[in-house]
């Protein structure tokens, strides 16, 4: 599936979600400077931030779309492209770096056939790096969705990934 097709698939899906965005906007309507939490909740809804949703938020909040785009592209948490069902974060912090974090990243890249920052064709995995997960005691560490996997070795990667469909 090409990226354009992927996007349109998500866009169709986004129509009934409009009322959900309304709900989010309603929750924060009296709060000053709530753009970031609004975007965080919206991203939870779609798994990424579709253009249509951002335009809708701009329209309803009277915040210029350029400002919203500026905020979205500033923070690493926000994504403008569809993401996989499972998000892999391989820690590249200092502690993991000296204990072989790079080797783990290379091995995951090889296993999935994608580079960090990309999503597999079947949308099963998105591979990302992170500057530190704060679980340095277990270095090298990788996180899949909410699960932290510590003391990783190259051999264990396939076993860990197999748990996520």
């Amino acid at each position, binding site marked *: 599936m090409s990226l354009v097709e992927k996007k349109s698939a998500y866009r169709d899906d986004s129509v009934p979600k409009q009322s959900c965005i309304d709900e989010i906007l309603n929750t924060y309507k009296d709060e*000053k*400077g*709530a*753009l*970031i*939490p609004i*975007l*965080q909740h919206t991203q939870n809804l779609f798994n990424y931030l579709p253009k249509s949703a951002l335009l809708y938020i701009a329209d309803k909040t009277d915040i210029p779309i350029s400002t919203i785009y*500026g*905020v979205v592209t*500033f*923070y*690493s*948490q*926000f994504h403008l492209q569809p993401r996989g069902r499972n998000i892999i974060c391989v820690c*590249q*912090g*200092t*502690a993991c*770096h*000296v*204990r072989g974090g790079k080797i783990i990243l290379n091995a995951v890249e090889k296993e999935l056939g994608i580079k960090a920052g990309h999503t597999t064709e079947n949308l099963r995995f998105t591979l990302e790096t*992170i*500057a*530190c*997960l*704060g*679980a*340095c*005691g*277990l*270095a090298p*560490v990788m996180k899949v969705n*909410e*699960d*932290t*996997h*510590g003391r990783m070795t190259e051999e264990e990667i396939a076993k860990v990934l197999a748990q996520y469909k």
Partner: protein
Amino acid sequence: MMITAEKLKEMQDVYKTAVSLRLEKNDRNEQPTVFDVLICGGTGCKSSGSKEIQRQLEYELAARGMLDKVHVVQTGCHGFCENGPLMIIYPGQFFYCRVKPDDAGEIVESHLCNGRPVERLLYYDPVDGKPALTAADVSFYKKQKRIVLEHCGRIDPEKIEEYIAVGGYAALVKALTEMTQDKVIEEVIDSGLRGRGGAGFPTGKKWSFAKNAESDKKYIICNADEGDPGAFMDRSVLEGDPHRVLEGMAIAAYAIGADEGYIYVRAEYPLAVQRLKIAIQQAEERGFLGKNIFGSGKDIMLHIKEGAGAFVCGEETALIASIEGRRGMPRPRPPFPANEGLWGKPTNNNNVETYANVAQIINKGAAWYRHFGTAESPGTKVFALTGKINHTGLAEVPMGITMREIIYDIGGGILDGKKFKAVQIGGPSGACLPEELLDLPVTYDSLTEVGAMMGSGGLVVMDETTCMVDVAKFFINFTQSESCGQCTPCREGTKRMLEILTRITEGGGSESDLELLEILARNIKQASLCGLGQTAPNPVLSTIKYFRDEYEAHIKEKHCPAGACESLASYIITDACKGCGLCARNCPVHVITGKVKEKHCIDQERCIKCGTCYTNCPFDAIIKE
């Protein structure tokens, strides 16, 4: 009606019974009948399966009808993450490490039923091989002085009752009922407490600026955007003792006259966010936070703001911009946030560890606090020990202790008996210190003198296999990608430095590169807008200063002494080669030749240094140099 100190004491006495086993000294002569089993629920231990241990333990207890006698508690981080999941059993403070769910049955049967500790789960000291029966006997804890981490790992962070039972919120009540705003600030100034976020600015002084600023509205902010790679003390405090931070913030809010505040937490810390939410809710339900706290007529509303992933937001003006919903970009100071902060109002901003010190200073006084540490840097500091060290974990020590004591006495020395090379302190703003500085007393000022800084307290230990040029490249790569891009010295300068360092690690460095790096570093330090840029060159400058020979080896000899830079490595087949031919078949560029059953040879000129032969040799006959 005002909740007075007496009333709080009554509450404490009621709740005390639930934690009494953990507070009283135990007479080990008789077999106890009731137990508290504490299981670490910090991020590290949780990911190694502590939740499953708890389930299994409860199952075993239920099967024996012992649930009413044994109280299983999920606590915050104990600090000794290397050996997790950890379990401590009271009375007696028996310390078990690397516990597995399958061990639950034996723990219940042997320890809880028959009074025989499970010896194989005890901690065995790597030096003398002797087991440590209790937590106090473990070498990792012996030299520590726990003030900030006092309750971490001892109480259930999700129960306000346990925090009250160990004396929680008494400092806030004392401040509200017995002390004026100025008196609180005076006490904190006298204590000499300095900002634990890294720069070390005197906390009390900061508060007095915000107190003296005139305004109808003031704010308080807790910086929990712990972004330094290799630092996780703030996370552990938030996860293990969240009320402690709330109490410190509330005292600060009272002192400066703020009625509203924000805790800005890193998005990567979901457990900390969850425990803070629970803590705020519980404190509000009891009237300890919110409107009219403790019946004093004062309001303190605290909110949580989740960050969205930007290291620069640890800088206070960037953090404020982020709370206001904007791009987190720093602005020039003055005006300082104490005069013009959040929404243009006077704002006080401290980090988690700083606030976590406040309650004890108010409770026990500035003079008590000054017993610990040095005259210029009083108190304790929590360090996150990581890297090539035996005891990875969190250690709280009095300031002024030497690096050697932290790394060898507490940290248990270097992993796998390798040789110490450097310790990195202060994260991306800090420095790499060599062996000859190991006896340096650790204080804010002594570190600044040698070109490092305290930073948030991450200590990453490096051994002989770590390449210092690669480490410098690692940090510049980090600051370069986290630079907000607003000012040219930081945006362009760090990028150029990264290019030069990459060139050096790939064998393309020239002799003028070192001088060029130093000139760039000086300019970036002097001309950048905020702390991120002003300190970004530190890891490069310190490695050039203390490990110049490694840079020169990369540049002149095209050789990485640590063998870490892949492009400079060479693979050599030794006499251990049996001539099986596997390497020749696997080599993607077909540059390995040799006859069957005879020693093979790699054509070094054409080798692409992929390492396939090295990792696959069944006889370990290939070495990397």
